[in-house]
Every structure is written in C-alpha cells, then in structure tokens.
C-alpha cells in the first residue's frame, strides 16, 4: 500500500456522498423514494466501510497522505488547490462523520416516511456529508472554507426544510445570519494568514509558524495599540468557530435550528457540523498554542457556555430544545478542553458526544414519531410502557451525557474537567468552577427530560395514546447502533486517545510543553476501570449523581417542587426562560437597529441619492445631452465639412502653433 491508494480511497469516501446527492437531487423524481434512499444509503455505506479501511491504514499501518488533487485557480503567486490531508485527526473525523451519517440515513427512512420532500431530504443529507468530509479532509484553508460554507448552506436548507412553516424559515434565516457573523471573522482570519504567510496550505503555514512567532510581529488595527499577529489570527479564526460551533454569544441560532427534521438535528446540529469549530481549532493547534490570550479566550468562552446554556436547558419544555441546549453546553465543554490545551480531550469528547448526542436526538425523534409529531414534554409521560427500546436507548444516552461512569461521556468529560483544573493560563480558575457546576446542571436537565418523558403519569390525549407504539426497526436499529459506542467508546478510547505514547492523534495536533496538562494527568492514570472506580472519590461524580437525584426528586418524588421553584425564585426562572436575554437583545439591538438603519439608508441613500440623483438624474442628463447633440447632425453637407475643417484647425493650432 502506498500513498496513492490512500489518495484513491479518500477520493471515493469524499465524493461518493456527492454522487448520491446528485442522483437523489436531480433524478429523485424519476427514481422514486425507494430507489433514492437505496442509492444514497448504498453510497454512504461504501464511504463508511472505506473510512474504516482508511482508519486501519492510518492507525495500524501508520500511513499519512498530504497531496493536491486539483488546482482550482492561480492568482499571482497564490495557488488555490483542492487537496487532502489524511492524518490521524482527519481519519477520526471521517470515521465519525460517515458513521453518524449512515445511521441518520437509515433512520430517515422511517422518520421522513411519506414526506413530500423525501428525495430532496436524502439529497441534502448526502450533500451535507460531502461538504463535511471536504471540510475535515482539507489540506488547506481554502478547501476548509469551501466545506465550512458548504455545511452552512446545507444546514440552512435543512433547517428550512419544511419551508411552509414560518418558524422553520425564521430559524433558517437566523442560523444563516448568525453564521455569517462567524464566517466574517473566519474569512478575515484566513485572509490574514494568506497575507502574513503567503499561502493557504496548512503545511506551508505551519512550517513557517515557529520562525514567524520568534519574530513576534505585531499589527495595529487601532492606531497606537499593537497586537500580536498570531493572537489576532487565532481570535479571528475562533470567531468563525464560535459561529459554527455555537459558542456564546453566537449560540442563538442552534435552538432555532430544531425547526428542521429531527434526523438533521442529530446529524448536523449535534454530531458533526457544529463540531467543525472544535475540529478547526484543533487543526490550528500549532497556531493557537503560540497565543496564550487566544487560548484564554477559548477557555473562558467555552466554559461559560458550558454552564449557562446548560442552565437554560433546565426550563425548556420541548424535548428537542432540551437536547439542543445540552448540545450547546457540551460544545462549551469541548472548547474549554481546547482552551486548556487538552486538544485530545476536547476531540475525545467530540467523538463520544457525536455518538450519545445523536442517540439522544434520534431517541427524541423516535418519541416524536410515537407522539405524532408532538414535542412538548408536558403532554408526554410514562412512555417506557409503550416504547421500551427507545426507553433503554435514551437512558443509555442520558447516562453517557450525564457523565456517569463507565459510560462514554464520563471519560471524556472528566478529562476535560481535570484538564481545566490543571491548566494554569489566565481564567482557568473561573473556567474550572463553570465546568464543575456544569456537571451538576447537565445531569439535572438530562434526567429531568428523561423522567418527565418516560416516567411520571401519562398526560397525552387518548387519541394519541391509542396509536402509541414502538417505532419501526429502521428507526430503532440506528438507536441500538449508536447506543453501543455510547457505552463502550469511552473506556476503549480513553487510554490511547489521551494518555497513549504516542497519543492516538499523533502529530496531527501540537501542544506546547508549558501547556501540556494531559501529560500531568497521565501520571494519575491507571487504566479505564481504575479511573471509573476512582471517580467515587471525586467531586464531578457526586455532582452528576446529585443532579440525577434532584431531577428524580423534582419530577417523580415531589412533583410540586418545580412549581415551588418557579414561584419562589421567579427572577431566576424568568432569567432562564428568557435565555439570559440574548435573543431579546439581538432582536432589539441588531434586528430592530438594522432595520432602522436599513430603512433610513433605503429612503435617503437609495431612493433619494442613488435612485433620485444618480440613476434618474444621470439618466436625465444623458438624455438631455443626447437630445441636444443629435442636432449636431443636421444633414447638411456643409455642416459636415465644417465640422471636419474645424477639427483639423483645432489640431493644427494645437500641435503646430501650441
């Protein structure tokens, strides 16, 4: 096996979903629903199987590949290529993306059954998978940006998939606009890289970084203030990550994205696309490691998000929104891990989270199918009686999310909390408290949703109850497929991923020696089982358990408790239901403000100045000039000859006499 075969395999992995998307998108009407899902799923299966084979090549045989496959454009000395960087990081991401995508493809057969946009849906999710694979396999910023925008586009299309619903359109627009803010930072970051390094190729940039950092150049955007170029670049890139990975304060779009079909929420808004920011920051680790300020920012934004968005989840009544806010919170954890320089821990959480969050979303989707597209938990209750498989799977997902050992989430989240604890960069102490309290909050909202949905008395209408039954196998089979890694992935990966020598991700990420918190933690590590047993001695474990207990108490033990809380602590309850006011602030300040400014610009700038003065005005002037000057053409020969002589005389007097 040589690099050539990796090249070919990755080509097939990346482009197979695109082929599927084209077939289902353009010929879906002719093929019919059945053929469409068969073709897309078949191609996804190929991609997944090959991704596994690729993983074997990369992890077992230690091969990597970095090469250009197509030169898209050359402008001066800049080259824009399409190329693959297949190393341990991108292989892990490809495996994760194809696995979840395949599960979601299969699940969608059941969930989208009978929808008029069935083929369109399959075309979109295949297209999404293609864009995501382009993103993770890129070997340059240009292709990264292509994938980045590609997933953003498909996300927008899928949130507004049911485009006849106002909420869906609102949600997709919001997602699009908020992501624009992030992308603005991102493209400025890429431009800065192109400007200072003269290349958009990862390898070329990273090769120059040590030398570049040694000279520590600064730039002053505001006169008099000198900022380190590396910090500016990192912060700009991180703004991009904030948009895509829904970090505060750009997180507001993710809850709205739940207007899309549930499989999408699982695939795009939980498992893959929203983790693109985490992936990108990890990919850029050689840059971020050189800027303590940027790392601090990542750490604080991430940990604050982990706690505060988790709090909001406690008061949600829509089952999907609970899971959505929980995604925000978990993304905060991942970012906090990256900020603490524990890139492996952040990515580890990314992988485990992809499994258990997709599981929770698909579980919620299964409940929603059973409840005939009712998402309000106030109208559910005691569903374990009707949907036993969903119940068990959801419980596994909830345990994993709440970080109860030995489920997958425990290992990754505990590693992040420990890493933040061990970190010494500014802001680490506050961050530690945030992620620690977050552990309690996570367990609380997760099990609140769990008890409220599957236990307590039945609150649904009789009509719904009459049809309540377990979902078909295409729906629960992916649940089971995702439940398995949700249990075992943590204990299998924790050793090699975090403490392996060399670590599983190898040299795909770079950690500066002074920030290497994982190396500190490795001294305390004695295998997954000992870690799980040891957890009863630690604070996070007891916080999580008490979270579960409080949830049980409030919804099963003493059902009057939530109302008491709501009435006694009205201000706290209001703060949470208003989501700390982010949405209202945006609505008031940005949306209304923009509309005001736009309205003013339209009236004064557009209607008066541009339309009135320039467009119509210049049009009138031109018309006037035309009408006047056409009279020069009188039709008389002597006028013509006179004009000619005049021209001659002017030239003569100018050149000869002048």
């Amino acid at each position: 096996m040589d690099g050539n075969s990796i090249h070919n395999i990755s080509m097939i992995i990346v482009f197979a979903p695109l082929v599927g998307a084209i077939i289902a998108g353009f010929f879906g009407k002719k093929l019919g629903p059945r053929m469409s899902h068969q073709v897309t799923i078949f191609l996804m299966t190929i991609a997944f199987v090959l991704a596994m084979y690729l993983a074997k090549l990369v992890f077992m045989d230690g091969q990597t590949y970095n090469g250009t496959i197509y030169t898209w454009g050359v402008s001066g000395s800049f080259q824009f290529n399409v190329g693959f960087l297949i190393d341990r990081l991108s292989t892990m991401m490809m495996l994760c993306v194809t696995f979840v995508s395949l599960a979601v493809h299969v699940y969608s057969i059941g969930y989208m059954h009978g929808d008029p946009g069935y083929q369109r849906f399959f075309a979109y999710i295949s297209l999404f998978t293609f864009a995501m694979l382009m993103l993770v396999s890129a070997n340059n910023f240009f292709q990264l940006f292509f994938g980045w925008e590609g997933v953003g586009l498909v996300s927008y299309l899928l949130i507004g998939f049911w485009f006849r619903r106002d909420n869906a359109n609102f949600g997709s627009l919001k997602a699009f606009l908020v992501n624009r803010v992030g992308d603005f930072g991102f493209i400025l970051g890429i431009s800065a890289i192109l400007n200072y390094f003269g290349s958009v190729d990862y390898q070329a940039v990273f090769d120059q970084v040590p030398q570049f950092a040694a000279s520590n150049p600064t730039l002053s955007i505001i006169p008099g203030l000198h900022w380190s170029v590396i910090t500016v670049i990192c912060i700009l890139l991180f703004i991009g990550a904030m948009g895509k990975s829904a970090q505060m304060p750009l997180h507001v779009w993710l809850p709205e994205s739940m207007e899309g079909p549930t499989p999408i929420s699982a695939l795009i808004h939980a498992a893959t696309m929203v983790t693109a920011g985490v992936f990108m920051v990890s990919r850029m680790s050689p840059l971020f490691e050189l800027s303590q300020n940027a790392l601090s920012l990542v750490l604080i934004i991430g940990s604050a998000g982990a706690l505060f968005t988790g709090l909001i989840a406690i008061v949600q009544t829509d089952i999907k929104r609970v899971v959505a806010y929980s995604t925000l919170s978990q993304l905060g954890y991942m970012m906090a891990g990256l900020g603490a320089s524990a890139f492996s821990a952040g990515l580890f959480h990314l992988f485990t989270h992809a499994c258990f969050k997709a599981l929770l979303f698909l579980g919620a989707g299964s409940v929603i199918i059973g409840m005939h597209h009712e998402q309000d938990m106030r109208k559910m209750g005691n569903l374990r009686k009707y949907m036993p498989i969903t119940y068990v799977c959801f419980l596994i997902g909830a345990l994993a999310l709440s970080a109860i050992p030995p489920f997958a989430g425990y290992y990754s989240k505990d590693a992040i909390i420990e890493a933040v604890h061990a970190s010494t960069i500014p802001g680490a102490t506050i961050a530690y408290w945030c992620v620690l309290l977050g552990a309690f909050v996570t367990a609380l909202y997760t099990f609140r949703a769990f008890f409220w949905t599957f236990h307590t008395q039945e609150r649904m209408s009789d009509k719904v109850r009459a049809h309540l039954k377990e979902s078909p196998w295409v729906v629960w089979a992916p649940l089971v497929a995702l439940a398995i890694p949700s249990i075992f992935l943590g204990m299998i990966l924790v050793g090699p991923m975090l403490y392996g020598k060399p670590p599983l991700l190898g040299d795909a990420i770079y950690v500066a020696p002074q920030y290497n918190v994982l190396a500190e933690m490795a001294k305390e590590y004695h295998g997954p089982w000992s870690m799980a047993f040891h957890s009863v001695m630690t604070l996070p474990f007891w916080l999580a358990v008490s979270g579960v207990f409080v949830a049980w108490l409030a919804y099963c033990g003493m059902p009057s408790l939530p109302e008491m809380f709501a009435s006694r602590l009205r201000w706290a309850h209001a703060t949470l239901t208003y989501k700390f006011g982010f949405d209202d602030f945006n609505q008031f300040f940005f949306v209304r403000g923009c509309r005001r400014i736009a309205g003013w610009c339209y009236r004064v700038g557009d209607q008066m100045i541009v339309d009135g003065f320039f467009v119509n005005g210049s049009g009138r002037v031109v018309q006037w000039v035309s009408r006047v000057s056409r009279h020069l053409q009188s039709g008389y020969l002597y006028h013509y000859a006179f004009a000619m002589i005049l021209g001659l005389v002017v030239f003569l007097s100018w050149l000869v006499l002048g």
Partner: protein
Amino acid sequence: MNFVIPDVVPAIPEIFMLAMTCIVLLSGLFLQRRYPSLPYMLSLLALVGAVVLTVALYKHTTEITFHNSYIIDHIGSILKVTILGTCFFVFLYCRRYVADRNILNTEFYVLCLFSVLGMMVLVSAYSFISLYLGLEIFSLPLYALIALQRDAARSAEAAMKYFIMGAVASGMLLYGLSMIYGATKSVDIAVVSQVLTSVPASQNLILVFGLVFVVVGVAFKLGGAPFHMWVPDVYEGAPSAVTLFIATAPKIAAFAMAVRLLVDMMPLYQVEWQHMLIVVALVSMAIGNFVAIVQTNLKRMLAYSSIAHMGYMSLGLLSGNAQGYSAASFYIIVYTIMSLGAFGMVTILSGKGFEMETINDYKGLNSRNPWLAFIMLLLMFSMAGVPPIAGFFAKLGVIESLVEAHLVWLAVLALVFAIIGAYYYLRVVKVMYFDAPEHQSRIDTTSMDTRIAISANGLFILVLGIFPGIIFNLCKAAF
C-alpha cells in the same frame, strides 16, 4: 534605367482576387441568364481562394517587395484573412436581400470584390503610392454601392455625401503625405521612418503639419469624431446589404492604414499623434454613445455605436505600446465580427418588401424567432461589453493597455462611456424580450445557409469570449 523584375509571389492573393473579380464580371455579363447564381458562387470561390492563398503564403518573416512599396507581414495577413472572411459572410447574408430588391446582382458582388481588392492592397501597402492606390480602389466602389438602388432618394443622398466628404478627406490625406514627402524626400514608409529617426519632432514643423492631415484622413476612414458626420447618414441611407459591407471590412482596412502610417512610419512622433487620438477617442466615445441613445432606427443607432467603438479602438492605438497595438487589433477584429452579426441580422430579417430597420420592428422578436433573438442578444451584450462575451475582453484589453501607459483618467472615462453605452444595447434586448410584438407572424425570411452563418457568427463571439486566446495570441505576436 535599370528595371528589376520584382518578386510577385507575396502579391499572389491580390492578383488572384483581381483575376477572379474580372471573371465574376464577365460571368455576370454573359452567363447570368443561364446560371443566375453563378456570380454569387464565383464570388464566394474567389474569397475562399484568396484566404487559402493568403494563409499558404504566410511566413513568420516580414517580406518587402515591389521596390519597397509592398509588405507582407504577420498583422497584414491576419487583417487580410479577416477582411476576406468578413466579406464571405457579408455575401451569405446578402444574397436574398439583393435578389429580393432587384439590386443589380453581379454589380453588387463585383463592386464588393473590387473594394476588397483595394483593402488588401491597402493592408499590404508600404509606400504612399501603393497606400493611396489601395485606398482609392477600396473607396470608389463603396460610393457606387451606396447608390446602387438608383431610384431611392435616400441612397443617392447618402452616396453624394459620402463621396464629397470622402474626396475632402482623401485630399487632406494626400496633402499630409505630400508634406511628409517634402520633408523626408521619400514615399517609402520604411525610408521615411528611417529618416525621421534623425529629425526630432519639435524641430520639424512641416512633419507635424503633415501628420495632422494624415491623422485626419485616417480618422475619417475609421469614422471617428469629429470626422464621423458621414457615418450615420451613409449607414442609414444605404441599402442594408451595403451598410453591412461598409460597416465591417473597411474598418479593418482603415485600421491597417492607421497602423502603417502611425505605428510603422511615425513611432517617434507618438506623442503628437497620441494627443490627437486622445481627442478623437474621447469625442468619438462621447458623441457615439450619447447620440445613439436617442436613435429610433437600428441602423443609425449601430452607426453611432460604431463611432463609439472606433473611439475605444483608438484607445489601444494611442497607448503607444505593443500591448496597446495588439489590444487595438483584437478590438477591431472583434468589433468587425460583432458588427457583421448585427448588420447581418438587420439584412437577413428584412424580407421582400419590408425592412427591419427601426428598433420597434424588433419588438417581441423572442416570440417570433427565439433563436435569432438569442443571437442578437449575444451580439448586443458583446457590444455592450458584458462578460464573458468577446466584446468584454476587447474592452478589457484596451483599458489594460491604457493603464499600462499611465492614462488611468482616460481608462476611467472610457468605462463611464461604456456604462452609458450599455443603455442602448440593452434597450434592444429589452425590446426583443419584454415588449409585445406588433406582428404575430413567425419570422422565417431566412434560409438555411444564412441561419447557419448567423448562428456561427453569434456563437463565435461567445466562444471567443470564453477562449479569447484564439485570436488574441495572434494579435499579440504581430507587434
């Protein structure tokens, strides 16, 4: 007197052309009764043969013969092939028009062929004598062509105007050439340019004096303002078939004359002629674009548009660098092809007994013949300079060369005029696509060969826009 027999090989295409023209004339006289389309066929054959010969004789080196009065070089060959090809298409478009209107069939083709012969001589001329000879051979048939419909008052008026103005311009050119002859004691362009190297411009008023007259003569033939007055009247007054011919091939011949007299002969006086050409270009772009807006007759509108286009082309010439010259030659070739298509459209759409002359006639063309409307759209977009059609790259080329020559202000003005000009081209498109047709009947006045020809013409503009290198590289190699 020692008379050396000159090498006639470089002039074989012209000799062939002359012979064929005479054959066409005779065939029209004696055989047309029996074979009505024989002159037409022979004319096409003459053009094809001349193209083949020109290409076959083409070498990468420059050759001068006939006692320094005749040159065969790269740019000359390109321009000759373009002239011949243009004329070929003109004949394809005109056949029906000429037949329908009882225009003297043979005479039309013969006069056109004689004119083409004159243009070929002019393109290859390398002394004042051969240059003037070519100029007159190509001009005189044009006057006759315009008046070919003898009973049409409009045509007669146009012919008279053109003839008298042409005579004045011709006289001015001759006067200018004689001044230069007086100062340099030679009529050979090569010798003159050699002599000029030792005479700085500031010291020789006679030369500058002569140069002014030469530029006026050239500008007249190109139809640049303020020597443009004949253009609208002639274009409108002549029968569409003749307008089609006048609006295309002669532009190339005039361009060749400009290249020989200004670029080849007087490169050292570039500052002087640059100033004059700046004025000509600016006034042409202004008058052409502004006045075209208010026209209601499509032929007249296209006439003003041609004035504006000659302004743009001059921008390339006046840049005074190789890039500018090649951009100008690319521009003139692209313009000729566009103009060929546009006037060709007017000609082929005009059926028996009616002319498609006014812009209103084109209302709803899309519903009457969508394919021809699309070709017209391509042509109009190309003239307006909409990417990715050839007209855009032509404009881009000259504007680039202006920037290269540090004449950014002129480039900006050229763009402003281009924007103003876009209005009237787009109006034609609007009329074709968005206005309700006045007649519902489908237009099917075209025959198969013209349809193919006009499609090829329009699509070539598009292809040339996507791959401008096909011709641009040829032009680049010429300077």
